[in-house]
């Protein structure tokens, strides 16, 4: 968390994403595998992240591939867990337990915000 502001400054001028941020609704999909530890960790991390950053304007849909294996093809899922940001566009994919918040921010294109 300490290093974040430094990087943020460097990245901000490059990305003119400011105008579409306010009041954006976030639609996220979390692909998990049953109740594996990685899946549970990922869900907890995502939930926590969204609560702090996107409170009130996000929706997480958890998809259990054990129950719906056919859904893996659509979003090109290979790794578990995977978060797919459906909205706002463009679609973004983050794989892993989301324990690395810095990378998660990069993945969700949120580094310049907040």
């Amino acid at each position, binding site marked *: 968390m300490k290093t974040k502001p430094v990087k943020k400054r460097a990245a901000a001028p490059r990305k003119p994403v400011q105008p579409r941020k306010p009041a954006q609704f976030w639609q996220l999909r979390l*692909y998990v*595998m049953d109740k*594996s530890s*990685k899946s549970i*960790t*990922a869900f907890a*991390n995502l939930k926590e992240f969204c609560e702090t950053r996107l409170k009130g304007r996000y929706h997480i849909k958890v998809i259990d*591939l*054990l129950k719906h*294996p*056919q859904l*893996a*093809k659509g979003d*090109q*899922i*290979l*790794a*578990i*867990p*995977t978060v797919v940001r459906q909205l706002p566009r463009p*679609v*973004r*994919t*983050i*794989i*892993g*337990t*989301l*324990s*690395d*918040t810095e*990378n*998660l921010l*990069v*993945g*969700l294109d949120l580094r310049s915000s907040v």
Partner: protein
Amino acid sequence: MKNNGSKSISTKKLLPKCPTGIQGLDEITGGGLPRGRPTLVCGGAGCGKTLLGAEFLVRGAAEFGEPGVLMAFEETEKELKANVSSLGFDLEGLVRRKKIVIDYVHIERSEVQESGEYDLEGLFVRLGHAIDSIGAKRVVLDTLEVLFASLPNEAILRSELRRLFRWLKGRGVTAVITAERGRESLTRHGLEEYVSDCVILLDHRVTDQIATRHLRVVKYRGALHGTNEFPFLIGEEGISVLPITSLSLNHKVSAERIATGIPRLDAMLGGRGFFRGSSILLTGTPGTGKTIISCNFAQAAALRGERVLFFSFEESPDQIIRNMQSIGLRLEPLVKRGLLRFHSARPSLYGLEMHLATMFKEIATFKPHVVIIDPITSLMGSGSDSESKGMVTRLIDYLKAGQVTSLFTSLTEGGHALQQSEAAMSSLMDSWLLLQDYEGNGERNRVLYVLKARGMAHSNQIREFLISDHGVDLVDAYIGPSGVLTGSARAAQGALEKAALLTSQQEAARRKRELERKREAIERQISVLRSDYESETMELRRIDEQVGTSALMLTTERTASGILRQADAKEVARTHSRSRNGKKKS
């Protein structure tokens, strides 16, 4: 997915094989890829890895009733379908009939962000779902190594790949994993470390401006396999590997004999021609009539109702038909009846393997009884010696296995070294006829020998080979103290002999007549002598009778005078006459 790992295949003892259906590959591997195990196929770009995988699936689904999953990491479903359909595979139809599932896995590094730990359970789920949806028995992963480029964390990837191969084995599917050839190792990312059951290496290299693909089974755990490098082709019907050494010498043989179309030649070959299914080599210098003998053989076979396939590498079919017309062979009706088929191609058109493959294809579709290759030498020129010999071996084996009689003509560069030049090929042949020019008396004549004919008594004599407008004939060449005489010299010698014979015949007749005359003279003498003798005998008898008569007359006179003298003389006269009568009777 975890519970799937416990399912293991029980039939490991015999190492069951999964036939690929790819021409030649099953022969090399002794039946196919190891069933229920992954096989690694590696090779550089453009080697045909994807195609091999696709053919494995398509043939599995279409010919062996084993549905398959193709997980493509490089090409999309649409691209794949288009690519393989150009090779005659109906991938689209198989997908529609739910025999094959294609799953295109696409992962772009720039679009994916890593955050924390993960595994590739998603890949397993997708693969598992695809397998379950059609009950797949075969899986192809093409090219898994793309993942190394897409996923930054190699440590995770490696451990997951290890898990993937174990998982595939656990599912009992026969898998083909393609991988890019590495600089120093078999694969760029060391996949061979995970797949240890069977490794096939593909290679594409150019020698003498002719590009040839090669296939080698580097490793096949628990099974015998051909270890050599085998040329393979990607033709109109997919891959065909040409194993040269995999065929063993155990084909069935026929004792049936087939006529050559030249009666005298049949007579030279023990009276009944060649064995069915044997291989015949016909060598000769230019213009000695190789094609003519071939066409005679073809015509004879076709007239018996057999199918003949004529591969011509020097003349076009029309030209052969026209030329043969001039010696009274009418091939056109046979072509029209579908008994004779010509296949003409320039030897330099493509490489040796491609020629061989096209020939195999023609043979497989036409199913001939007799195959003629005219000439084999021009074909052999398009490859190296060992390749050519291998190819001829392969061709002969293939033909013999199908009991097809094969006739190869071979062009030799004049001179007498021709036996040597053909030594490499002749040992593969069952019969060998040699046509030669014989020069002398200002003319060239053709002669023919039977150099060898396995399994039959054959003439060891030279025959003069005559070509006239009503066909071919063989005549005895004159062999005498002055050497072999052919052509007009033979005719002259024949005339000379005829004259000598006539003279001796006349002499004999004269002697016979003389003898006859002598006999007649003797007989005449004999008859003269006999008549002399007979006349003398007659004379003697007449004298004898005269003597008797005079004696009787004497007695009679005496009796008459006795009567005149005294009566008792009667008795004496009576006894006298009786005794004379009795004497006469006897």
